[in-house]
């Protein structure tokens, strides 16, 4: 009988032991820190994970109150809530492990009740939030950084929008017509002014290719003018109609050698052209009106002096000759004023075209040959190495300059003197020199030589008829071509006038 009891007991004991071991293993296995706490807050048991996280060994922490690793107020309220509700799920508390820094943990509790329903204690588990907190902090940091980037991006976008709006406003309100062709030569943009000039709505043409646009009557002339390649051009005149003249500039837009397209700007110069035309007409007419009476005087005087109207005595002859000279001066002055009026207008006065500078010089030399010969001055043309040199010039005006320099050389050089016209190609362009062995220009007067209406006293003595406008005009013309003009002179020895025309003005041969 005892044996049976003993057996039963033994079996029970074995079971108990097995159970004990199971519980033990489970408790010990758990990677989650778990402890068992008495209702009054004394730690009664801890698992290895709890030992690890708290830094306390079992015998150091069992029997200790929870305040050993938690803040009294925090754990107190947690304990009360546990006992009241039966559990707490995930409350964040501060945890103070042995010898370490406080960490934030998430605490879970669950009460144990006896058969009567009395709380006999509670399990407490915690979850180290350090890692999570770190990640949270990191995330927050990233979030802030992203927000900053977003703000910056917003700012940049807003600025870009502003810029775009500004640009858009400029384009829309620009008083010149604007076309923009993309890199494939399709029309990408057209402003309201362009719509007005060409009497066509942009919706009809945006996106179309050059070839397609050529077919439209409103744009044909323009497309023809621009050419299929839409070459770069600066301020070229384009008459849309007889009375409507546009000045066209084509700018190739590139950024870092990437072709972005071409911008075509059309500036209405009809009025300027009209003014120019009127001016020219006025000048012409004025010349004519002024010259007519002067011609009559000239002819009359000359005929009298020639004896065509009868014999005159010496006294009469003298006075009449002086009168004649005066009249000639007047005629010369009118000529110069006329020329000046045309030149002073700036860019509208120079019409550049390719010409052979050698030929130009030669023709002037040829014209002047006889006069020089008659006066007894040796005239020489020092030709350049090349037979022809192409330049881009306003031929009429350039001739005026060379003629003027040669005239001056003629006027102020005496019999047996020498005058040479030299033309040579230089690195920067071409250079022309008119050298004489004449009377030279007085030192202190040299500064004023190019001034309007200026003539030195010596010059007036030698040649009474002179307007004082020749060199003023010459400088205007040469500088208008982008060149430079100057002189070297010494009294009694001679003068050398020179000017250069820059290379850009030299068309490619």
């Amino acid at each position, binding site marked *: 009988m005892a044996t049976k009891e003993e057996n039963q007991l033994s079996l029970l*004991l074995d079971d108990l032991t097995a159970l004990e071991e199971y519980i033990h293993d489970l408790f010990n296995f758990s990677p989650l820190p778990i402890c068992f706490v008495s209702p*009054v807050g004394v730690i009664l048991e801890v698992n290895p994970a709890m030992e690890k996280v708290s830094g306390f*060994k079992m*015998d150091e922490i*069992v*029997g200790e109150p929870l305040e050993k690793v938690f803040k009294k107020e925090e754990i107190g309220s947690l304990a009360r809530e546990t006992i009241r509700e039966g559990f707490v799920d995930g409350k964040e508390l501060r945890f103070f492990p042995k010898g370490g820094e406080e960490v934030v943990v998430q605490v879970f509790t669950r009460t144990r009740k006896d058969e009567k329903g009395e709380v006999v*204690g509670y399990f407490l588990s915690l979850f180290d939030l350090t890692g999570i907190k770190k990640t949270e902090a990191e995330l927050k940091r990233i979030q802030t950084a992203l927000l900053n980037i977003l703000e910056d991006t917003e700012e940049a976008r807003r600025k870009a929008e502003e810029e775009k709006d500004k640009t858009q406003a400029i384009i829309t309100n620009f008083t010149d017509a604007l076309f923009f062709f993309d890199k494939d030569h399709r029309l990408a943009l057209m402003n309201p002014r362009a719509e007005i000039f060409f009497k066509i709505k942009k919706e009809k043409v945006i996106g179309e290719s050059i070839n397609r646009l050529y077919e439209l009557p409103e744009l044909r002339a323009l497309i023809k003018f621009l050419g299929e390649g839409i070459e770069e051009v600066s301020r070229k005149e384009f008459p849309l109609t007889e009375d409507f003249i546009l000045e066209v500039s084509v700018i190739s837009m590139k950024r870092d050698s990437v072709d972005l397209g071409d911008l075509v700007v059309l500036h209405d110069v009809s009025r300027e052209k009209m003014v120019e035309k009127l001016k020219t007409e006025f000048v012409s007419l004025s010349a004519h009106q002024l010259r007519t009476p002067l011609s009559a005087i000239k002819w009359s005087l000359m005929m009298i002096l020639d004896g065509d109207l009868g014999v005159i005595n010496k006294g009469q002859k003298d006075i009449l000759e002086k009168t004649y000279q005066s009249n000639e001066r007047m005629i010369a002055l009118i000529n110069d004023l006329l020329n000046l009026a045309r030149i002073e207008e700036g860019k509208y006065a120079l019409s550049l075209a390719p010409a052979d500078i050698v030929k130009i010089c030669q023709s002037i030399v040829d014209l002047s040959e006889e006069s020089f010969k008659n006066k007894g001055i040796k005239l020489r043309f020092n030709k350049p190495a090349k037979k022809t040199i192409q330049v881009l010039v306003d031929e009429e005006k350039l001739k005026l300059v060379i003629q003027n320099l040669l005239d001056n050389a003629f006027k102020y050089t005496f019999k047996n003197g020498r005058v040479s016209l030299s033309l040579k190609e230089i690195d920067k362009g071409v250079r022309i020199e008119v050298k004489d062995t004449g009377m030279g220009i007085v030192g202190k007067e040299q500064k004023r030589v190019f001034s309007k209406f200026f003539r030195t006293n010596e010059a007036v003595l030698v040649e009474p008829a002179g307007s004082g406008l020749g060199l003023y005009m010459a400088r205007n013309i040469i500088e208008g071509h982008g060149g430079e003009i100057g002189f070297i002179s010494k009294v009694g020895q001679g003068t050398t006038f020179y000017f250069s025309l820059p290379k850009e003005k030299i068309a490619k041969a």
Partner: protein
Amino acid sequence: MSQLLNETEVKKLMQLKGEVRGVVFKTDFEYILNREGGDGLEKLENKFQEIGHPIKYGEIKALAFYPIGLRIISLLAIKDIFSFSDEEIKKIGEAAPKLSLVIKLFTKYFLSITLTAQQAPSMWGKHYRAGKLVVVEINEKEKRIILSLEDFNLHPLLCKYLEGYFSTVVKMAVGKPTNSQEIKCSFSGGKSHEYLVTW
């Protein structure tokens, strides 16, 4: 040292009346394991073998009852091998309740010292089938308790051990540091062992 554990002594101890739950000296082994590591444990196990009562830590059944002599031998062996002082023996006693599975059965009573005190005799009984534990006095206000252990004259070494033991049990109930002292000892003329624990 070995005088403590010579053959005669061992025999004498093994003849003492009473039984003890495996958990009691299992906690000794655990303490050594924690403190002296696997090597220490092995030394202890070897000692047991030496004296003719081989016990392996893993084989001790916490809830089974064993001859009470083993309990004393265990402490003696420990003292012998590791040259523990009496204070260190007290420490083993302090550690024991924390490690004890049986104590865990009583955790529901750790609500208050009074409740715990009420359970004290029962707790004792579950560990030792020898002697009787009685609560002489409880004064929660003054924070003191006096426990009396009667009919328990096994070995003076146990006195120190129990000092530590009781100190922890009270601590677990009140959650405050405790002080424990044997104020009366039957080995020195007292009727029983009386322990005063204050907090």
